[in-house]
């Protein structure tokens, strides 16, 4: 009943492509962003920034990347962590080995691009191989990445296991000195990630409502028909891999830089790929916003659960038990969600919204 659509009509096609056709949505979104930018940094404690908001943003980027590939273009991938790994290492190396003027955002973009190219290489098989058979290619990427950086310690600057990322990497365009603000502070990192994530999400949104996005979905829904009506299927797939891996790469870099603050190979083991896959599934395949809903749920669920565990049972059970129970619940949650609503949280949200719009009518 909040939705007052009467009297909102379009006089041009541009208007019809608005991101938020319903005024209410527009204002809600604007408020939300303002809150995120101007309020959060001041009210949120370092713990909240460091242990909740920043990781969610980093995960979200990677999830969005995977969603572009799997959800939008229908190419199943288990290599996400691998691509994140590439992104993280490249960013580190670019920052490490390039002259003064290099800056984190720029480095991220470069690293993302390189990751994207690698993505294309591992995506090439998708020209011939379809469906589950494609898993083998992405898994190859996953293991190759781990092996590669393990075998060539050069990329880890010959450190053992992990390197701590130097703070000066964060100083964007020397803002740090000039205004003498701590660019390595969590607030700064949070805002940086937020900015990047917002930009990327917006880009993805635009892409999806344009010709490219339609090509993606066409390839997903029925690639043979797509080719007959003249969609360049191969190019589309490759593009999907590039964009997706770009996002994953940036995600990986944020993951290390903004969240963990250390770079290491073990961060990007196989199960990270699954974690992100869940985020996408639970959030809703093919939905940009969904990627973030999923991220939040998947990331917060175990935390909440163990917290609840401690809170309720006052540590009657040891953490291992709680973790296992969490895992069980988690598995059940996934299966239940798939049974109840294959569209994931995004679909749930959409139905709720639809309900609001058609109230008092059942449909």
């Amino acid at each position: 009943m909040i939705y007052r659509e009467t009297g909102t009509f379009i006089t041009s096609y541009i208007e019809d492509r608005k991101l938020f056709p319903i005024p209410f949505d527009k204002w809600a979104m604007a408020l939300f962003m303002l809150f995120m930018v101007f309020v959060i940094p001041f009210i949120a404690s370092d713990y909240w920034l460091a242990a909740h908001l920043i990781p969610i943003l980093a995960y979200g980027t990677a999830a969005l990347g995977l969603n572009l590939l799997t959800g939008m273009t229908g190419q199943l991938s288990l290599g996400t962590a691998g691509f994140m790994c590439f992104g993280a290492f490249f960013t580190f190396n670019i920052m490490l080995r390039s002259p003064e003027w290099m800056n984190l955002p720029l480095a991220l973009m470069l690293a993302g691009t390189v990751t994207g190219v690698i993505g294309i290489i591992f995506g090439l098989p998708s020209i011939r191989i379809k469906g589950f058979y494609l898993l083998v290619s992405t898994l190859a990427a996953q293991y190759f990445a781990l092996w590669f950086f393990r075998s060539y310690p050069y990329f880890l600057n010959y450190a053992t296991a992990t390197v701590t990322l130097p703070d000066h990497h964060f100083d964007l365009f020397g803002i740090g000195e000039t205004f003498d603000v701590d660019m390595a502070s969590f607030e700064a990192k949070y805002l940086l990630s937020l900015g990047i994530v917002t930009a990327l999400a917006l880009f993805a949104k635009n892409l999806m409502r344009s010709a490219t996005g339609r090509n993606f979905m066409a390839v997903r829904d029925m690639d043979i028909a797509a080719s007959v009506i003249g969609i360049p299927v191969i190019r589309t797939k490759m593009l999907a891999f590039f964009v997706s891996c770009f996002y994953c790469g940036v995600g990986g870099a944020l993951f290390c830089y903004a969240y963990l603050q250390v770079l290491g190979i073990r961060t990007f083991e196989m199960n990270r790929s699954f974690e992100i896959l869940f985020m996408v599934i639970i959030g809703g395949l093919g939905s940009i916003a969904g990627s973030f809903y999923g991220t939040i749920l998947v990331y917060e669920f175990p935390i909440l659960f163990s917290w609840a565990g401690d809170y309720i049972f006052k540590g009657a059970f040891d953490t291992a038990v709680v973790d296992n129970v969490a895992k069980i619940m988690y598995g059940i949650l996934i299966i239940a969600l798939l049974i109840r609503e294959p569209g994931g949280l995004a679909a749930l949200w959409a139905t709720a919204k639809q309900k609001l719009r058609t109230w008092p009518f059942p449909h």
Partner: protein
Amino acid sequence: MDTFLALLLEQARKNSDLPALRTKRMGIWDTLTWAQTRDKVSVLAQLLSQQGVGVGTSFGVFGPNHTDMYLAYLAVHSLGGVVIPIDSNTFGEELRRQVQSTDVEHILAFEQQHVDALLECEQTCVKRIFYINRRGMENYAQPELMSLPENLEGIEASTAFLEQMDGQRDSGEIATILLTSGTGRSERPVELSHGALIATARSIAQRETITKKDGLLAYLPLSASSDFLFSYSLTMVTGCAMNCPESDDTVLENMQEIGPTILFGPPYVYKYIYTHASNRIESARTLDTKIYKAALRAVMTVASHRAEGRRGSFVDWLLFMFARITTFSPFCNIYGLSRLRLALTGGDAIAPDVFNFFRAIGIDLRETYGQVEGCACVTMQSSEDWNSDSVGVPLDGTEVRIENGEIWFRGPGQMKGIHKNLEATAESTKDGWVRTHDAGHLDDQGRLHVHGQISRMGKLNGGGAFAPDMLETHLRSSEYIKQAIVIGAGREYPVAIVTVDGTITRTWADRRSLRYTGYADLSAHASVQEMVREYLQKINEFLAENPETASMQLRRFAILNREFMASAGEVTPTRKLRCHEVAEKHRGLIDALYSDALEYTYTDPVDEESYTLPLGNV
């Protein structure tokens, strides 16, 4: 000077940048401001005058509600021509008759289908056919055809031309010739002057303070007098925005987009929304159905209190407000009624339940009474009239009097006369008063109550009075009954032929898991018959209470195998029943109703199928 041209120039001066005409085409609402409208009109007018359109030329406008059609109105009016609006779905003999009876010389057809229809009808005095939409017109070589878009190119917009024309205009000039619906008597072409239309529109506008900020939806067929008054004239007088829907089947959708503040609709429109809504609610048996029902009860109680003129309890009022906010404001949003300030109905009696419903949910619905002879609006309810039995008080400057039971009126809005038919004119006017052929009475507050068409009133053989319109209105109150006709004048007892509303009756039947193949089958279904019978019995009980009406109780009824259709000439473009045609067409059925037959088998001329209708006793 009260001419449409004068109004156009004035609006273009005062509100040059405000939206004037909007039409949804190709998915977007393309909008003309008043200034643009003026320029377009000037261009079109120049072309038309070159083509010999001048003072008194009958100019047919044949097509859907569309900006270009109304531009043509203005162009013709600025040249002093007479606009003959023709409903987009007219064709064949019907079309020929209309063109003939108003001797149209020039005609504007919207697109191919209309051109074809025109080319088909022979021996008319049409000299030239203009058309707007060029799609599919490539291979047409007829000399009388002329494509507007090409010929308009190169003509300069010139306000001067219009102003010059304005000098020559006179409010007495005939603006349009509209055909009476011919529900009672045969249809007659009525001449209306600029002055009359503008005066009527103006008095409505002043009374309801309609301004340039308002917006309305022009969706009624062009040929309807109500469209000419409530869309065209009202827009010109007030400078509000007129919006034309994309196509017939998107009207509801477009209504939501535009959210008009002023709406005129014949009763069927409101009935449609009413049934559509309740059908939508019924279609699912869920919690929200219950909530909705409760909310409806809450508002209805308060509404009935108001109707009876007494104040309800505070609790009632609280519930009422709550229901309105939580349930009916979203409801209005969905049907695009949220911004509605003034909802008008007229041209036929509206079913009390429908009327009360809209009043209850907070729509300021008013009944109007009018006739083509009186520019479609003679009296109008005020928002204090909480029930639908009266049609309100006359517009300013208009008088109504009752002469031996018949309603007469006179005022600025009255017609100029019947086109080229002096005796008809004489027959329906007497020393400045216009007769309505309707029976009615004025109450102590000077409100008019209409009883129905005199020609249809009469006495039963028993000697009891007989007012079919009143009965039909009661019948139509049921959401299941869509159309109804009652016969009985000069007969032993009244009988009814009704048609059921397909959509909601289906839902009703499905919930009872009845077996049926189609509409015809459903309408003949025993339990549907039973449902209708029960409803008729209720009406009879109501009639029995009052000695005057006791004799009017319905004895027998039949449910038709299809709805009455415009294409069969049974209803007017505004869905009003053409009683005489219907009575003619279904004579056999009526006779069967007066026999003691229990069923009636006939071949429906519409689809050459044979049907057997059960005839029910109430």
